[in-house]
């Protein structure tokens, strides 16, 4: 149902010429000749207005011969399509979040996230609709634009009547508002599409992945689609069109050796289920863990007995102490320090790689939704190789706990959830300082349009006097000529 602007332009020209021809003929024939009334002033106005119409059309015709020439209207459907894609994917994020959080009765977290997503959708929906409506308005105004000279000249023909004032208002408003709204449309479209581009999801498919973890916990699992903490089994949301692979498993800032196997989904009542990821992780050797109900505070392990004398013995007392007698034992330890009542040789080592921890990339205000994570770096930890020797004596080796390793993930900020939670930040980046420009632009367009229209209406009688003078010159020039011609005519 596209408008044919060239047809509208020609329609306006033909309508104007016909209307003025009929009106001038009516003035001359009916009012002047048949009724014998004095039509001089009306004729001057009509001819002047007609001349103004022809001048205006000759100015805008070259401009409009290839309409839309002012500014090509952008595609409103495209804006709404982008909105629909983002809104649909954000809504799907809500779905998988509900599936993760409802069974574990984390209702508050769900409703908070739902609120965040609803605000993004609401804002984006408003922006998209506003843009689409301004585009639609511009397209409608473009169709009206070629008719503006006709409205103005009709008003000039009869300037002192209420109808003339209304037509002058409509004509001027169209003439002024169309290019201004065209400019506004480009500005708004660029901003909206800028925001949409920043928010645009990397993928349109969302899945839930079951993660089964075997290893010391809680572990921080870093994947290609984000990080999360796990103690065993959990679900994580992922982008369905990107493969998930594990890049690192850390426990107590120590990098674990791991293997993982992705298993495809069998039949599931939950249609978004994307399979299972089984992860096995361990330290290079078994370890004694320093742990209480608040978290993990280090690990140590007697690697081997270096020397053994008669009746030598060694065993752990608890998770921080080891007893030896008549033995020389080599320990690996990841603790704050070590003490003993026998001879100790301590060497710093980096047998097990350590890592810095970073939680999911979400705004700090959303951190409570995603859970808690350990501090980024261990405090006061040393990785040591310790040689303890107790010949003919009893020795207790005590390992001093380091800083706390703890954390749990409520909502894994992986893949789509990470993207959704970054949404508000991206919105801000997308809008940047440009929103101020939009407000100013709307106000400028409104003020200029209203001002020019009001000024035009107020000046209508004076402009009409000008066009009437123009008409008078033309009529007075043609009249004698017409006298001469009529003399030459045989009838």
């Amino acid at each position, binding site marked *: 149902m596209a408008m044919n602007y060239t047809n509208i332009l020609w329609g306006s020209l033909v309508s104007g010429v016909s209307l003025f021809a009929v009106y001038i003929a009516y003035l001359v024939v009916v009012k002047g000749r048949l009724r014998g009334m004095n039509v001089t002033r009306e004729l001057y106005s009509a001819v002047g207005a007609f001349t103004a119409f022809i001048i205006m059309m000759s100015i805008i015709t070259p401009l409009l011969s290839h309409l839309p020439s002012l500014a090509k209207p952008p595609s409103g459907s495209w804006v709404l399509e982008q909105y629909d894609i983002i809104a*649909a994917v954000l809504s799907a994020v809500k779905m998988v979040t509900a599936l993760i959080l409802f069974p574990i009765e984390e209702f508050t977290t769900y409703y908070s996230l739902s609120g965040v997503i609803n605000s993004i959708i609401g804002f984006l929906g408003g922006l998209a609709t506003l843009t689409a409506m301004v585009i639609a308005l511009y397209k409608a105004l473009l169709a009206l634009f070629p008719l503006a000279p006709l409205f103005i000249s009709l008003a000039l023909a009869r300037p002192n009547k209420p109808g003339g004032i209304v037509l002058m208002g*409509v004509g001027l408003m169209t003439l002024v508002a169309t290019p201004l709204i065209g400019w506004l449309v480009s500005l708004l479209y660029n901003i909206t599409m800028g925001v949409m581009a920043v928010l645009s999801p990397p993928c349109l498919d969302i899945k839930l992945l079951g993660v089964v973890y075997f290893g010391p916990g809680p572990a921080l699992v870093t994947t290609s689609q984000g990080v999360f903490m796990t103690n065993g089994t959990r679900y994580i949301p992922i982008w369905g069109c990107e493969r998930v692979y594990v890049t690192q498993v850390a426990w107590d800032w120590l990098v674990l050796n791991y293997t993982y196997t992705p298993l495809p989904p069998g039949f599931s009542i*939950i249609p978004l289920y994307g399979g299972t990821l089984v992860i096995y992780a361990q330290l290079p050797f078994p370890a004694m863990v320093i742990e209480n109900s608040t978290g993990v505070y280090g690990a140590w392990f007697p690697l081997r007995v270096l020397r053994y004398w008669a009746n030598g013995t060694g065993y752990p007392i608890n998770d921080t102490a080891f007893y030896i007698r008549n033995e020389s034992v080599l320990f690996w330890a990841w603790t704050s320090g070590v003490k003993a009542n026998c001879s100790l040789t301590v060497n710093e080592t980096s047998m097990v790689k350590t890592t810095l921890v970073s939680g999911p990339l979400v705004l700090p205000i959303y951190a409570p939704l995603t859970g808690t994570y350990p501090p980024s770096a261990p405090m006061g930890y040393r990785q040591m190789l310790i040689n303890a020797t107790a010949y003919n004596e009893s020795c207790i080796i005590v390992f001093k706990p380091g800083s706390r390793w703890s954390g749990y993930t409520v909502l894994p900020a992986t893949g789509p959830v990470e993207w959704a939670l970054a949404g508000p930040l991206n919105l801000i980046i997308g809008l940047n300082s440009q929103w101020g420009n939009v407000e100013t632009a709307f106000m400028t367009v409104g003020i200029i349009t209203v001002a020019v229209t009001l000024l035009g209406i107020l000046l209508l009688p004076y402009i009409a006097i000008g066009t009437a003078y123009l008409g008078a010159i033309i009529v007075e020039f043609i009249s004698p000529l017409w006298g001469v011609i009529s003399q030459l005519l045989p009838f």
Partner: protein
Amino acid sequence: MGVTSLLTLPYGIGITIAGVELAWGLVKYYLAPTPGQRREAVEEFYGVVIGAVLTAVVAYYMSIGPSIGAKIAGAMGVSVTQVQLSDIPKVMYFDFNLVMGQYIANQVLAFAFSAAGAILGVTQVLKPVGALLGSLSGFLSAIMAPYNRALIATMMNTIALAALGQVMGYMYNYGIGSLSIALLLPSRTRRIGAWLASFIIVFSILLPLVAGYQDVLVSNYGNVFTMWVNTIEQHCSNNSIMQTIISIFLNAPSWLKNAINILADFVCGITSLQWLVTNTATLVSTGTFNLLEGDIIIDIIMGIGFAITAWLADLIEAGARALFEVRHL
């Protein structure tokens, strides 16, 4: 058109009024007491004849207004349905019903998903399914939000056009068009006659044009929701698991069967989320934008129609004064 049909409404009333005008002109001529007044009556009679012809013709003009409107729209590159003046309320009511039906279906489905989710969510075992359904409702509301706005704007337009159509229909059926021309003759009723005539001249063409445009918009883009649901149904008709679930409820009451069908289709749609998102975005966005654009065009055209009516009323009044004013010789 047979000669006798000229006597039926609205032509009949136009011809009757024209006849009365001519008779009045003749009565004035024959009853004129002096030769001067008789000459005046002759002068007046010319005007009365023109008035009578116009009076008789205006009903015909009103009847061909819709085809003129359709031709104008065609010349502008827009094809519209040709709607007769008296049919406008009926056509607009039909369109309103269609659009309102889509809006309600959309809201009901969103509510049904939400309610089903809440009910199922009560049981521990079905809590994930309940959660899925609850958020499916949010999904539906979010993607359909701009379309719902466009539907509301369309409903408003159809109501306004139906009301105007109702007025124009009565004007056409009861010969108000002809009467308005007749009212131009006496100086006391000239102003109201000019306004009526102007309104009728402008809106006999404009209203069917706009109503036809609205009708085409609604036929093309007013049932996007149904089209969307049908697309999902079609897409899921080959999904064996869904068909198995549906077949379990083969003997269930029809309302339950229908509800299960819709639920199964949407759950199936979610399994191919990428397809669902792309398909929905294309279908819904095109319909939404075209409806919005059409609504704005209609609002602008109607506003301009009223402006032209005001302008033309002045002109008609001045013209009528020049034509019909009795000159005292």
